């Protein structure tokens, strides 16, 4: 996204898109497509599929923009949620053996470097600090799930624990994370 657009301006573009103004939709696309493509590509790890997903995402943005008006999310959070949820649905719909998926997901998500942490926004620093309070492996699993759309089954295989153990880990981690964020 180009830094010239404030969240308020993006909000207005989504409202105008809900009113079926193509000019607003064009502008919204121009200012958000790189971020949303980044989401699709990171989750799907396949350019052709990410391109198809991006098209689906903007079709949804056009047809469901009025839903944004009823939500209390910030405009970028709403857009990223539309993109992430769609990309993860596509990922789940794939019929690929788990072994291949493991390789495709070999990218790890280490905690951000000090430089990255220093330049990040305060909300990001806050959630990173809360993730740091979790056990190392669990924080990695939470980040991996959120950013790559890893499923319980994939995470269980990767960390070599039973699926139910992974579920218990992550549920506890999520509650701890929220407790920390609301502190």
């Amino acid at each position, binding site marked *: 996204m180009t830094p010239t657009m404030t969240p308020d301006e993006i909000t207005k573009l989504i409202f105008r898109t809900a009113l079926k103004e193509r000019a607003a939709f064009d502008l919204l696309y121009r200012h958000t497509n790189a971020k949303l493509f980044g989401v699709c590509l990171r989750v799907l790890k396949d350019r052709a599929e990410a391109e198809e997903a991006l098209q689906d995402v903007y079709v949804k943005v056009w047809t469901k923009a009025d839903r944004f008006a*009823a939500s209390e999310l910030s405009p970028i959070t709403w857009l990223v949620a539309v993109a992430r949820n769609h990309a993860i649905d596509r990922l789940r719909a794939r019929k690929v053996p788990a072994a291949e998926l493991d390789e495709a997901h070999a990218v790890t998500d280490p905690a951000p470097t000090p430089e990255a942490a220093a330049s990040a926004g305060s909300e990001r620093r806050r959630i990173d600090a809360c993730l740091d309070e979790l056990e190392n492996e669990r924080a990695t699993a939470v980040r991996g799930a959120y950013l790559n759309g890893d499923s319980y089954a994939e995470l269980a295989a990767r960390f070599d624990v039973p699926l139910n153990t992974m579920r218990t880990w992550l549920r506890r981690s999520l509650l701890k994370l929220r407790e920390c964020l609301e502190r």
Partner: protein
Amino acid sequence: MTVADEHGPERRDDDLVAAEYVLGVLAADERAAAARRIETDREFARLVEHWEAQLAPMADAYEPIEPPANAKAAIDTRLFGQAREPSRPGLWSSLAFWRGVAVAAVLAFGAYVGLTYTSLPFGAPPAEEHRYVASLAHDDTDVRYLAVYDGATRDVALSHVSGARPEGRDFELWAIEGDNPPVSLGVVPVGSSVHVALDEALGAAIEAGAVFAITTEPPGGSPSGAPTGPVVALGDLRDI
């Protein structure tokens, strides 16, 4: 105290399913079930939204990546049948060009404002500055409308987002300005997208910062001219 704690064990389990849905770890069938609940269960949808907001800062880590230049044309074709003729594609699709335009626009706007406020008499602002939008909602109901007021035509466009009117009742739209009694804008016609025309006085009230509210009333609207039923949705107007 969290939303989940207030509603006992079932709510707590829903809360965790909402968290798992947002985190993205559920299997395909569980995701599909959760997505269906979001559409039909307002409470569950709220839990999901809460988690979306809480985990959102992690999305900072998604690096922006430029999609292929023809992606937008493909989207337009799917939505509108055919893409617009791209004039001078080399220039118009260039990011650097658009950044330049954005900067130029900001500079031009600055110059315009400077000029308007220092040396010119106050002219009529362009028509699009007369538009206001309100999201009408209420915590106790699932009634949602998007309202857009166009000052140039004094037209209120209402887009129905969710929530049905109760059996045998009508929705009535009101404008409330400051401490004045609510003024009826009439019964909201049935339909997903409807228009209500306003007279000049009401138009002025809206531009002065009135709030829109929707109540349920007997068929045909409030008999007394003042709201009698509960407010099911309300919202203030934002300038767009």
